[in-house]
């Protein structure tokens, strides 16, 4: 029953911890973002395993993406993804208009340049979840106006 506030604070502390202990040059070459993304990946893998223990087999890729948008997102962020778009060729865009990890930060363009730090963990979370459902992907995020953000999932065909 860990409260949402606790996770939010832990996440923010993790972001600032990674950046504070970053060595010279690591911030520029994106190592910090990678670290956060990798942490999210591990958590996503573990979480999806626990979560889908008893669910039925997924019919197809779209079914899995819908699961991520509805059940998975609701469990982690207490709401569903607001909009899912796809080109039916392996690219999905998940839009969250009120992303929980950004609502406390700003309501518009302020601090936009820092938003990517706070999205890296979640990108990893999605990538990790998909990975343990058998889907290899690349997940990126973009923000144009907080707290709305879009996660782009590119499925990698093996």
């Amino acid at each position, binding site marked *: 029953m*860990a409260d949402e506030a606790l996770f939010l604070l832990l996440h923010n*502390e993790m972001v600032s911890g990674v950046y504070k202990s970053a060595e010279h040059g690591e911030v520029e070459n994106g190592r910090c973002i990678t670290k956060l993304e990798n942490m999210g990946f591990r958590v996503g893998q573990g979480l999806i395993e626990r979560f889908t223990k008893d669910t039925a087999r997924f019919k197809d890729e779209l079914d899995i993406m819908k699961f991520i948008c509805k059940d998975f997102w609701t469990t982690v962020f207490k709401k569903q993804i607001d909009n899912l778009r796809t080109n039916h060729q392996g690219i999905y865009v998940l839009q969250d208009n009120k992303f929980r990890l950004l609502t406390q930060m700003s309501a518009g363009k302020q601090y936009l340049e820092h938003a990517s730090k706070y999205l890296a963990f979640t990108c990893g979370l999605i990538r990790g979840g998909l990975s343990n459902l058998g889907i290899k992907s690349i997940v990126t995020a973009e923000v144009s106006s907080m707290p709305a953000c879009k996660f782009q999932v590119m499925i990698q065909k093996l």
Partner: protein
Amino acid sequence: MSRQTNRGTESKKMSSELFTLTYGALVTQLCKDYENDEDVNKQLDKMGYNIGVRLIEDFLARSNVGRCHDFRETADVIAKVAFKMYLGITPGITNWSPAGDEFSLILENNPLVDFVELPDNHSSLIYSNLLCGVLRGALEMVQMAVEAKFVQDTLKGDGVTEIRMRFIRRIEDNLPAGEE
């Protein structure tokens, strides 16, 4: 089969697992970044402190508890309200010192260590040290300087997890220089 209620408790359990798993990923990353366990312990304490100073505001806003009059009341609030609210457990309070300034929180099960095993080469790692920092930071914001440390840990083979809390002193509000 009442699927509705299953989902409810399931999602509560899942969000606590999210925290547990995230904490695990954090500790793993810290162990990779810092070579020795002592540094990881210190870093966890620092991070916990930063979380604690903010968490206390969230706690006071949600719980509506009034000011505690003595350390015993503080202990009760920590165990019965705060731990319950954030981690879903109610630790026991025991081992009061004769002067009433030290007590122990006994956690039968520590949600942070679900799924965790300490490998042999990290025997001096205090895995849940974040909690000590949180307690220290939160109490400092309500004018109490305390020391919190783990004296027993289920990860190291003890039967329970025990945190020893020691009251150091009351922090007086420092008025800016020039005012009386």
